[in-house]
């Protein structure tokens, strides 16, 4: 089974984010970056499938030069080779623009399965995989926790809202958007990290793919969110704040 996994590099969780002067993106200078969480689960699902049924796992990532570190991490975890779609203006592209880049880079590979994470932790559009499926004319399913190969294709476990699930049968090739938490993530081994250095990492540009950036939805300006409630921040040592909170719960909220 040839499986392509689309991964995105995003600012590390809990990294302090500041709005850039342009107000159209964030200040990247001091940020640490990491593999998007649900993409890490997509990669894990792909690696486990390959271990079960054989084949190849190819990772693809669009983004600037720094993305190479995340690609190497995926290779170190066990992906066989990688495609880096060089793109310096990710935040200026809408979901269709990014999906076009990835779909055109994936198309000549003729994979059996394309996996993406459900949603990026930065822009959070949550659309890339679904649009890729449309562009590649493939069936798809989203919010997938588990994938199993069958005689005629695959069966997936899909998460519904409020604790419900559903099984879906799909023919292959297909595109799946993977939800976090379906399995345990592996760490890269020392041997894996060593091997990653020798694995193929092919670069393509949007010009190579013949895709111009022509967004139909544009991000105009970023700001800090407005508070939904007026928050009283309790000051002092842990002991002080605890005592103040208990007072509040007793006399103002009246839950004690």
């Amino acid at each position: 089974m040839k499986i392509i996994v689309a991964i995105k590099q995003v600012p590390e969780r809990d990294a302090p984010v500041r709005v850039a002067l342009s107000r159209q993106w964030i200040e990247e200078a001091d940020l640490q970056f990491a593999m998007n969480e649900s993409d890490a689960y997509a990669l894990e699902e792909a690696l486990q499938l390959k271990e079960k049924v054989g084949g190849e796992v190819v990772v693809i990532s669009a983004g600037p030069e720094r993305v190479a570190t995340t690609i190497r991490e995926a290779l170190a975890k066990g992906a066989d080779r990688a495609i880096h779609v060089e793109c310096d203006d990710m935040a200026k592209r809408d979901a269709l623009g990014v999906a076009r880049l990835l779909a055109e880079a994936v198309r000549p590979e003729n994979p059996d399965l394309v996996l993406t994470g459900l949603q990026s932790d930065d822009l959070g559009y949550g659309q890339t995989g679904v649009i890729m499926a449309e562009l590649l004319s493939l069936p798809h399913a989203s919010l997938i926790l588990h994938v199993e190969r069958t005689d005629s294709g695959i069966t997936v476990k899909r998460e519904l809202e409020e604790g419900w699930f559903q099984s879906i049968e799909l023919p292959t090739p297909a595109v799946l958007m993977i939800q976090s938490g379906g399995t345990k993530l592996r760490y890269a081994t020392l041997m894996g990290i060593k091997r990653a250095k020798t694995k193929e990492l092919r670069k393509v540009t949007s010009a190579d793919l013949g895709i111009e950036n022509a967004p139909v939805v544009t991000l105009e300006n970023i700001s800090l969110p407005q508070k939904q409630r007026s928050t009283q921040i309790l000051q002092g040592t842990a002991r002080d704040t605890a005592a103040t909170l208990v007072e509040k719960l007793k006399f103002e909220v009246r839950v004690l």
Partner: protein
Amino acid sequence: MSGIFVVIEERQGRIGRISWEAVAAGGLLARQTGAKVNAIVIGAQTEHFAAEAAKRISGKVVRIEHPLLAPYTADGFSIALEQFIRTESPEFLVFPHTYQVRDYVPALAARFGRVLIGDVVSIEDGPAYTRQLMQGRLTASYRASGTGTVFVSVQSGAFRADTTESFAAEVSVFNSAIESSQIRTKPGEAFRDSAQTVDLGSAQAIVAVGRGIREQENLGMIQELAAALGAEIAASRPICDNGWLPIERQVGSSGQTVAPKLYLAVGISGAIQHLVGMKGSQCIVAVNKDPEAPIFEVADYGIVGDLFEVVPALTEALKAAHQ
């Protein structure tokens, strides 16, 4: 190119609240464009839902009906709505931002070279659409350009649905042509992994724990705090993903929605997927080391500090208060 159409979603045999919120969002667009709000109900048997919708819709209600539209499939819904859009050329299509909408609307929009503006939390003049970035740490304003239908989906709880206006909208049927061979996926029945034994929905107080707790071994101090408060324990998704607490204790879009008198969030940053499940709580208290954490945007009381110091101090203070 005309008209605002809200695509209504059925929830357990009824029109869900989030669909009415989408209708409210459609109303905001209507005020900017002078158009009326219309609704679309879609499925294999839509008569009942169309009648329910007609009472609260100022424009008209369209039933997009076909035997192959139940159960939901991305292929079926995309084909049916594509045919509708080609016939009616609506100016706006508004959706509730549900799992189902996320599953097919991006593909539907792409068919028209358009992009869904998803998970919108407010609509300003322009129209400009506000949505959240960085897990709710930032907000961003978006605009649609070019010609063609604008696709918008609205976040649960972001628009007020409690209108009292009543209407008697005209109901019509849109006949879609779908072949069974066009439906490529085969969906099964919905199921739960285990029987639900915890009803967080009826709890008066909830202590919820998130990533900040770091290790499963540290959950003990949360249990002590919950016991001192007489509260149920809940968690954000990563805790249940790790198997540290059962999924039935998960609060958020993929878990339960709760609105207790007191919601004490410990080490939870407040990603939107969590906030939608608890922001209706009467009093929200947040303990987090990061003063920028989005959980503080919905909190009534905040303690910025190390939970490993605050939680034991709080448990002690609560025990002392009971004596």
